[in-house]
């Protein structure tokens, strides 16, 4: 049956009414005031307390909450290396378990000798140890968050491979998304499994550091709220921040910091940063980062690229170098100006990586044909067949 549009239209109206822009603006005013008045040293002290147990992911305010950095001059001759991936499969309705990861890269050189190198590497994964986290028992298939981790690892390796096309001394390597492999923090991920994914990722990060090419992950329209959560820590009247034992929740009915709940960092920095400015740096306290090299721990800053507020994540060795931070800041801003709000190097890497519908059908056909050659009839699940045939 078609979508019942009349029902949806009524619900859309209700949804728009329920969205109270004024109320959010008022809470944002509070957040902005907290950003300006919270003492970072005091928050650091509270977070350093070994008994502290904040209920959400928080950002460690390494320096200040409020300092802003104006746009540094962009180098004349520079190179941007970008990588992005896409995947096909795995499909649980199929008799063979496999997936394809397509990793594209773009190396764009600007200045006196402009140039572009772009390519893609495609890989089919089908071995038990590739498609199952527990290959011996065929349990925990690689899919969802773990497949995203696998793609991130391949993208990082592609970045390193693409550096062979770099001719400029001033280069930046960028990836779309986050540097934090949060999927490895899931329950069921044993240290051995974590190492299997993390080890090549770590190697690639070390190699980029060895070459002195700063790495940055670019997140457009970020939904992160780490800084907001840190401000909530700053508002906590309890002696030690343990959200599970919140006293104001008991005495006042809700935690005192609840006024900042549901806000995200980009609202805050949209009010705080002018066009081209970046925020100070913050250190992510994501638990998976304790397995990273110390020099690769993830820091981030927010950047007003003109069109929006972007989150830029960098490893510690970049965050600690004002010169490299300035380079990342200037080049990413410049990329966004060239790309109308989003870095063209990432667009081109994505265009290389994208697996079209026609490609997906071709992969399926190739698998069917090869399996038929080995007398395996490629029968899919009945549920899947019924969706494809859609008989009446």
């Amino acid at each position, binding site marked *: 049956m078609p979508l019942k549009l009349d029902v949806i239209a009524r619900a859309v109206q209700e949804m728009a009414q329920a969205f109270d822009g004024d109320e959010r603006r008022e809470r944002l005013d509070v957040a902005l005031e907290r950003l300006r008045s919270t003492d970072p040293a005091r928050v650091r002290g509270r977070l350093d307390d070994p008994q502290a147990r904040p209920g959400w992911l928080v950002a460690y305010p390494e320096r200040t909450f409020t300092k802003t950095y104006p746009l540094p001059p962009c180098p004349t001759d520079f190179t941007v290396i970008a990588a992005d991936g896409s995947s096909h499969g795995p499909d649980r309705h199929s008799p063979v378990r496999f997936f394809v990861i397509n990793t594209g890269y773009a190396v764009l050189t600007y200045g006196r000798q*402009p140039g*572009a190198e772009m390519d893609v590497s495609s890989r089919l994964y089908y071995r038990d140890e590739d498609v199952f986290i527990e290959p011996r028992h065929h349990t925990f298939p690689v899919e969802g968050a773990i497949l995203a981790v696998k793609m991130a690892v391949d993208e990082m390796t592609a970045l390193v491979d693409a550096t062979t096309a770099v001719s400029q001394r001033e280069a930046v390597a960028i990836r779309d998304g986050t540097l934090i492999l949060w999927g490895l923090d899931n329950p069921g991920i044993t240290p051995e499994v974590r190492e299997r994914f993390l080890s090549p990722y770590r190697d690639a990060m070390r190699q980029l550091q060895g070459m002195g090419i700063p790495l940055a992950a670019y997140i457009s329209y970020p939904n992160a709220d780490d800084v907001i959560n840190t401000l909530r820590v700053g508002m906590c009247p309890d002696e030690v921040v343990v959200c599970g034992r919140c006293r104001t929740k008991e005495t006042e009915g809700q935690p005192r910091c609840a006024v900042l709940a549901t806000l995200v960092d980009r609202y805050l920095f949209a009010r705080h940063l002018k066009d081209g400015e970046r925020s100070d740096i913050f250190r992510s306290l994501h638990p998976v980062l304790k397995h990273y090299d110390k020099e690769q721990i993830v820091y981030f800053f927010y950047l007003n690229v003109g069109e929006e507020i972007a989150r830029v994540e960098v490893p510690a060795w970049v965050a600690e170098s004002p010169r490299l931070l300035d380079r990342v800041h200037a080049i990413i801003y410049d990329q966004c100006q*060239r790309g109308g709000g989003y870095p*063209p*190097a990432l667009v*081109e890497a994505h*265009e290389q990586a994208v697996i079209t519908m026609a490609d997906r059908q071709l992969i399926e056909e190739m698998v069917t044909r090869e399996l038929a050659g080995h007398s395996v009839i490629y029968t899919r699940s009945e549920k899947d067949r019924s969706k494809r045939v859609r008989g009446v």
Partner: protein
Amino acid sequence: MARIGEIVETNSLGFVAESFELHRPPALGSLVRVSVDDRSLYAVVSFGATTGIDPGRRAVRRSTEEVFDEAIYREHPQLERTLRTEFQAVLVGVREDDGPMRQVLPPQPPPLHYSVWECTADEVCAFTERLVYFRLLWHANGGLPADQLLAAHIRAIYAARGDDLGWLEGAAREVATLLRDDYDSLMSVLQGIEP
């Protein structure tokens, strides 16, 4: 002579080739060659176009107050890799080994991915000694109005033959014979080839 393109679509009447140089397809009306073993196929360039390689990606405006025209390509180096220039050519003749130039359609279309070459001055002179292929050109569906294609071709050959007035007069007579029943088209071609 130089290799100028690679065939990406082909049929009995002509082919489409991707130009090796962005924005610089061979001149409209010029004679090009495809060599397949001992056979040379001759064709006249009938159309040129520059588009995005991916048909789903349209070109977007990129100029600013300071950056426009050629500077856009310096500031957006990926364009050299995401755009392509194609040209169409209509087949007008074939030569087997060292045999005579025959102004007929070849027995097979040129193979996909084969090279398209510029013709040497000698080849151009040899091929255009006879003009019966004008009829093939007139009836070709190359994407251009037939009178414009014919005029562009005659102009290109006149220049390639070193402003050979005698040849131009012969070409005008051939056009007059070909278009004796179509006064408007005839006048259009004649005006188009006036030196």
